[in-house]
């Protein structure tokens, strides 16, 4: 009996074409992530970490290979269908928070829900408040991003990622723009979310952040060169067959 992976990348390549050359950002990536996993992706600058996250988040289409999300192949989906999948299955957390300056915290969190047509205003409101409570910021709902600290902004961004109840949270250097204290708070929050059952895939080059994950994937020149799983609690490393490539 085989269990269904939440994310299953099979032989994924991503090539960027420019006028005079082509750059392979990802090369023959095979990666399966199960529900409830907390995975960190690390590697040197330019190794393809963010590109891998973009492919997982359907922000980029792979040039070759197949991508199954929750058992369904999402490679080559029509843009409208991709948008629907992003909206319902995936939650994004960015390094630069990417909050919209002219929206309040509440509206920023509400934004992904406005792209759905199956929720009433009350349902949206309830969900937004729940998400803000999850990140401990319900009292800041009327504040604009400029009125929030960096850590608070990132917590709003996490609430925005959570509000749609996605199957996976994709975090791209979530602490990269934060001081160490706020970074610690955000990492604690992500750990809490993972303990509550969330699947998290996090790109980071900070070893301390990577250590929070139960699985650490390392990339180099667009290839997975290391894939370690750690049993939760004992901190002992157990190699999980390394890179399947």
């Amino acid at each position, binding site marked *: 009996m085989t269990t269904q992976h939440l994310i299953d990348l099979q032989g994924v390549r991503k090539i960027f074409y420019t006028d005079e050359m082509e750059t392979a950002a990802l090369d023959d990536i095979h990666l399966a992530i199960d529900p409830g996993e907390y995975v960190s992706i690390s590697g040197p600058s330019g190794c393809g970490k963010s590109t891998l996250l973009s492919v997982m988040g359907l922000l980029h289409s792979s040039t070759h290979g197949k991508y199954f999300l929750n058992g369904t192949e999402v490679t080559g989906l029509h843009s409208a269908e991709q948008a629907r999948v992003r909206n319902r299955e995936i939650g994004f957390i960015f390094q630069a928070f990417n909050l919209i300056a002219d929206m309040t915290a509440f509206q920023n969190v509400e934004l*992904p829900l406005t792209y759905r047509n199956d929720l009433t205003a009350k349902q949206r409101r309830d969900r937004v408040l729940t998400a803000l409570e999850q990140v401990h910021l319900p009292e800041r709902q009327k504040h604009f991003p400029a009125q929030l600290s960096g850590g608070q902004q990132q917590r709003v961004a996490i609430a925005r990622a959570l509000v749609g109840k996605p199957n996976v949270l994709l975090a791209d250097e979530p602490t990269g723009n934060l001081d160490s204290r706020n970074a610690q708070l955000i990492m604690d929050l992500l750990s809490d979310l993972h303990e509550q059952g969330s699947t998290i895939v996090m790109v980071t080059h900070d070893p301390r952040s990577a250590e929070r994950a139960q699985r650490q994937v390392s990339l180099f020149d667009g290839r997975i060169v290391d894939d370690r799983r750690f049993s939760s609690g004992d901190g002992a490393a157990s190699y999980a067959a390394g890179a399947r490539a």
Partner: protein
Amino acid sequence: MNVWFDLQYAWRLFIKSWGYSLMCASVVALSVGLAVWTCALAYSQLWKPLEFPGSEQWYSVQLSADATARARPSIDAYTYQELLAHHRAADHLGAFADLAVVLSEGQATTSLRAAAISPRLFAATHVAPRLGRIFDSRDDQPGASAVAILSFDAWQQYFAGDPAIIGRTVRIDAAPVRVIGVMPRDFLAFEDFEVWMPLHLPQLARPADSTMTLTPLILLREHQTLGPIANEMKAAVDAVNRDHPQLFDPARHVTLIPAFRMFTHNAAPIVTMLSLMAAAVLLLGCVNISMVFFARLLERSRELALRTALGASRGRLLRQCLIETALVVLLGLLAGYALAALGIQWTHGIGAFISRVTASGRQAYLPTLRSVDLLWAVLSAMAIWILSTLIPAWHFARQDPAVILAGSGKGATVRDGNRSVRLLVGLQVVISCLVLVTCGNVVVAVEREVNKPHGLNTAQVLISIESTVFDARLADASRRLRYWENLTASIESHVPGSRVAFTTSAPTRPGKVAASIETREGATHDGRLTLPRTVVSDNYFALLGIRLRSGRLFDSTDDSASLPVVIIDESMASRFWPGENALGKRVRLNGSGQSSWLTVVGVVSAVPGGPYRTDASLGTMYQPLRQVVPPDFQVLIRLPDTTTDHRVALRAAAFAVDRDLPLHNLQTLDDYLAAVNLSYTAMVPILIVIALITALLAGSGLFGLISRSVAQRTQEVGIRRALGATSWRATSMFLRQGSLYLSVAVVGLALGILMMPLLSRAITNILDQVFPVTLGVVLLMAALIFTASYLPTRRALALDPGDALRSE
């Protein structure tokens, strides 16, 4: 509900960037306002039906010197008689003639706008009178008693709405006339007449007996085509031309024009030009807002990418963008409609001035704002809204969100944005040049035409705009001469210090007469020449400051007993006797039974005439009042001062001489000349505004493009300067980019120049200054492009190279 969410956000952006919002709304307002005003003007001038049912079935029969010349709705009575005799196809052929009649009631004498109209033509309007009856076939029979129909306003104004007016006999042109009907308040057929009387046309044996000019109209039968009628008319006119070659040019051409544009069809090229200009401004506005929106979306590309990452489909992004611009466009639409209303009001002001000076009553061709204009405004705004939003929004909706969110340029994202904006700016430059060349040439041509020196001393001169026509009591020449002497004395006594002259036409609008010129080879142009002619009193030249060049002016000896003489102006002298002394040469008039030779006794300075007078090069000839003793006249009075309005005293002076011969509509000569020029001079500010708008739009578009380019390349500037490039080399990088558009401008210039011949039919001198105007536009565009390129570059150069290197 989600729309409400988008709307709230759009409103926040609208308020936050109020400067941008107002600028865009202004562009929309100008574009929409101009489009609506032009649409209303075009409708009123070219498409508005006459104000009676079925008027689209009516056609005006017009004559022109040849097939290419301007057709005019006036036909001599003989030709009309022949048309009447030979028409078979049309349901009706009728005509009306403008008259100025005098209504005398008690101690009051008033001149009224009147028409002698074919009874059948009047009846064919199918408009029931408010009171009494309309004309029937008995009313134009020989010996029928004189009858008249009053307009509603005339009935109210001159008879206080007397309910017993029907059957009442009034005194018109010193004769009793019975009122048989009063037309409804809104009745305005062809012109705003106050009185209609039946047209009596005696049978004319020869064209020379024609004393009346008529405006003929035909009424088509249901589903009837114009072709057979046009052929029938052409055959009749050709026959008249052929039978009377001494009077009519064989090329004389008949044209049928829809009655609703019988007086305005010659304005079609101007209206078309204005419509094209408005369309160009609309397009420019669209492109401009598109570019501004493009730049704005570029600033917000991260936000759009984020929305995409959060699951917004392209459709949702487009909707969001459309909602954001909708607020700007809505504001622009409202302001544009208000601008159009102001434009209409301004046009009515011009119409009111012309109406007052020429006493022409209500203007049938003034534009009004109709509900369809509101629809047109909405459609124009929607065109701007959708085109200017969808193109940039679609571009950004297709962007790679991961690239933008990562903040790096993997791929060709930014380049694509620049290419689209460059195309838009190129389009803007082309359209601007086209509009600038067209507007520039029209403005220069019209300004030159209306500012031609008229060669008249108009200070303190009043003119009676409408002719005073002698009635049967003054059929005798000696009585008329005595009347003029009495009138002169009466005026001089009522307004001491004034000087009086008489003429048969306004100084810039001489009448026309068929004539022959005696040259060395004998009489030439026999019968084919139509010369401008005015009959004037002795002191006409002195009163108007027309200078004597050679020979003599008229004096009291030039009467019916003396040698028939004529004075010509220097244009006519140089046209027909170039390099010769015109004195002693002879001219023969062919019409009106005057076939004797007139000897040229003087040459005076030329009065060029009104704008675009087609016969201006022929000059004008003057005949003495005492020899011709014309049946009608206009009076010119030089007042001793302008501190007092002497018009009441002047009317009293005329009333004292003959109560049935009032002075019609006394206006200053300056006002009269201004009114004559106004239909052309009114175009000038409109075209200047259009040209300014287009230049501003092109300049701002270019400025935006270069600003963006500079902003994107600030780091590059820093690198170049760090590597040793001088400021000038860095500047030239952007100036080169701007100068590319100068070559693009050539396309617009070429298109503009190609349009000129199309306009030359209405504005005959438009080709005179094409080269300097085009050069001026090139210089203007060069200055605009240089400024738009240089100013943003200065900002980048003001940064230290170190700061520039750190900029993103």
